[in-house]
């Protein structure tokens, strides 16, 4: 490990790793620097400039998210020049779009809103001018309202660097710049896989869950950690529940492996089966041609009885086992063990091999 270096932030001498940025060193030492475009595990692009700080001997303010620390560096995060710049930047962002919190799904969980409040801005000095883009509602999963987009590029990096789907990028330039799939098409007409990573990455209300619209304010939602049931990877996720009903599914980067907060289209958007009226909640046994509700004991008894009878009459190799990809590795292990040790056959396979 490389030797630690000493730097000074806001008059406090702190130690940092040489490969750290100013922002990382500050956070590690409990010093707050606001950010917007910075998004963990993606490239630090220094785009929004909200995280600017003063560094002694530097020609200009520097973006702390992408400036590496160096020995003896003297940093100030709270000078007038820094606050003036942050205020101007946030005012410019506010005035650049339709940041109307009344009907925004992100109200209460919006990083722009937090910045405005933290900086104590009553209203921007510039006329508020929304670009007037049509809101994209052409699919049932993701709503895109580019009038709220602050062009931080987090969705672009989430798409390209985390999921590596390479669907999103910037187009046009200057204040006309916008984010989207190639040829300015909407998500449904593009190569988009609907993993929803961009929704989780968006700091404002530009990319939101269609199914969660008017489903509950962020503070009304209870987050319940669970494991995705769709495959054996075991992705960790948060069910966002309002009054007992799942409103949406979000990734949670704090849970770490195996998915580090990322999800796929199924885990993200296909949890409505949980509350579907047609969902099977009890075992059914066909009696006289009719499927009738039974207890688990009855069902297991029936399976055991029938399998034993078949094995006795036709031998163990007359039985084959076929497991679901929705089972975990452990369940699949148990299943093959059951087939080999209990039934006594090697006829065991798994649907993922098809």
């Amino acid at each position, binding site marked *: 490990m490389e030797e630690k270096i000493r730097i000074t932030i806001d008059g406090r001498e702190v130690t940092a790793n040489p490969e750290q940025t100013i922002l990382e060193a500050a956070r590690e030492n409990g010093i707050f620097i606001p950010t917007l475009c910075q998004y963990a595990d993606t490239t*630090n*692009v*220094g*785009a*929004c*400039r*909200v995280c*600017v700080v003063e560094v002694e001997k530097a020609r*200009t*303010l520097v*973006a702390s998210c*992408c*400036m*590496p620390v160096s020995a003896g560096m003297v940093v100030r995060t709270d000078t007038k*020049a820094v606050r*003036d*710049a942050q205020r*101007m*930047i946030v005012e*410019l*962002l506010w*005035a*650049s779009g339709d940041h109307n919190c009344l009907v925004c799904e992100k109200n209460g969980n919006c990083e722009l809103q937090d910045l405005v409040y933290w900086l104590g801005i009553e209203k921007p*000095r*510039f*006329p508020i001018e929304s670009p007037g883009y049509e809101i994209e509602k052409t699919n049932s999963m993701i709503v895109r309202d580019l009038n709220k987009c*602050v*062009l931080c*590029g987090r969705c672009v990096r989430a798409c390209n660097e985390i999921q590596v789907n390479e669907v999103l*990028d*910037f187009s*046009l*330039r*200057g*204040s*006309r*710049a916008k984010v989207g799939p190639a040829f300015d098409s909407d998500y449904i007409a593009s190569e988009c896989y609907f993993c929803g990573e961009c929704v989780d990455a968006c700091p404002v209300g530009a990319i939101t869950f269609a199914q969660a619209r008017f489903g509950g304010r962020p503070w009304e939602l209870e987050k319940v950690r669970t494991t995705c049931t769709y495959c054996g990877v075991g992705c960790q996720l948060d069910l966002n529940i309002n009054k007992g009903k799942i409103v949406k599914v979000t990734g949670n980067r704090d849970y770490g492996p195996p998915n580090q907060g990322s999800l796929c289209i199924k885990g993200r958007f296909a949890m409505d089966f949980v509350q579907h009226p047609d969902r099977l909640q009890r075992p059914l046994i066909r009696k006289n041609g009719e499927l009738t509700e039974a207890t688990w004991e009855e069902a297991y008894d029936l399976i055991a009885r029938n399998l034993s009878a078949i094995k006795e009459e036709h031998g163990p190799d007359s039985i084959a086992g076929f497991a679901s990809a929705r089972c975990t590795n452990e369940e699949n292990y148990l299943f093959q063990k059951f087939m080999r040790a209990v039934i006594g056959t090697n006829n065991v396979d798994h649907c993922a091999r098809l």
Partner: protein
Amino acid sequence: MEEPMIGSIPTMQEIPFFAHQKLRVLRNRGIIDPGKIEEYIARDGYLGLAKALTEMTPAEIIKEVTASGLRGRGGAGFPTGLKWQFCSQSKGDVKYVLCNADEGDPGAFMDRSVLEADPHAVLEGMVIAARAIGAHYGYIYCRAEYPLAIHQLNIAIAQARECGLLGKDILGTGFDFDLEIYQGAGAFVCGEETALMTSIEGKRGMPRPRPPFPAVAGLWGKPSVLNNVETFASVAQIVLKGAAWYASVGTEKSKGTKVFALTGDVNNVGLVEVPMGTTLRTIVYEIGGGIPGGKKFKAAQLGGPSGGCIPAEHLDASVDYEKVAELGAIMGSGGLIVMNEDKCIVDIARFFIDFCQDESCGKCTPCREGTKRMLQILTGITEGKGREGDIELLQEMAVIIKNSSLCGLGQTAPNPILSTIRYFRDEYEAHIREGRCPAGVCTALKRYTVDAEKCTGCGVCAKVCPTKAAKGEKKQPHEIDQATCIKCGVCMEKCKFEAIFVN
């Protein structure tokens, strides 16, 4: 029989336009056929390369370039030798030499002229740089809007390869270097070094934060040296004739010559190459031949759209990196636009910020949103909608945008605003407080008025006025109703008695 006319045709040096110039970068322009390498060689071409490869170590090349005092001609003026030294010290087998030929300033065409008229000078400089830093491949990033430059470069590259001056084993020394042209797609921001490299990598041309600096991690993350066309075109002569020769002209900190694209309200427009430190007055009046029509000099915009306006009171200022920065302008790539007294300074600032906001890549907030809002405020002022406090807001924005933008584009875009407010604040105030454009340029602020003494009441103005704003009794002095006047100027044009004036 009359005397032959030959004696009366002046030589180049007798023509004032050329007399004050010192041609180093442009020394071959118009003298050699750029399509023939032999003609370049006949003018000592590739001798600098031969010397660098056979008589000098890479360290000696860097030492010579450093001693010459050559600074980046793309605008920032970073010492070229130092840049090469940093890159030579970077570890790595693969390094790149990049030539910035993405000349995007409106009205600037010095790089184009060098590429079209003397392409080998650039190639020679690049090979020397490659030798100095240990690179074996390079790119010339040239804007696609320069088809002739690309054509001449392609011919020059082919000829240089054929002659063993590019490619494997250059001049039998065992040194390999080859290059190709990468055509830019027309974005101004791609002249910024990190955006240029991102563009060569096939990505959207947007700047990336520094550090890491290109000398450490540039093109495809490899150590790279990027210099402007004019810089490379200076290198071979420095190596051949020595650092002392190069540094013999210029000022203490700005050595050598600089090419300016002189244009605007000046009699002689064109490319001029002068020693650093030449005064603005010499460039405008001696070389440029003064202002046409006996008009007064108002200001010169130096450094392209993100440069600054230098007013008449500083005509005797020495044009070098330090002085120009002190006056609130930048050297830039050398655009020099002369403006006479008929130009409205607010309109000029509006014009330049319009260019910058249009060319902003859109990545960082201050540049993307800030330049747009500054344009909005300036447009308001020129349309008579200026408000008290606009000047102060513009100044505050300008300082913040300069201080917090990601790249050179945003960091310099507010210069025209800051410099025009600095020198012509009264004109801004006249627009805002008096609703008056002193230069009479801003249409919305024009007031067409009838001089009652001159008016004969002929009625022509009333007849031609499309909004019936001009009216009056026959044979009585007419009047123009300001509320309905659309400032089209037809009344003034048609009045035979010059009784209508504008203020």
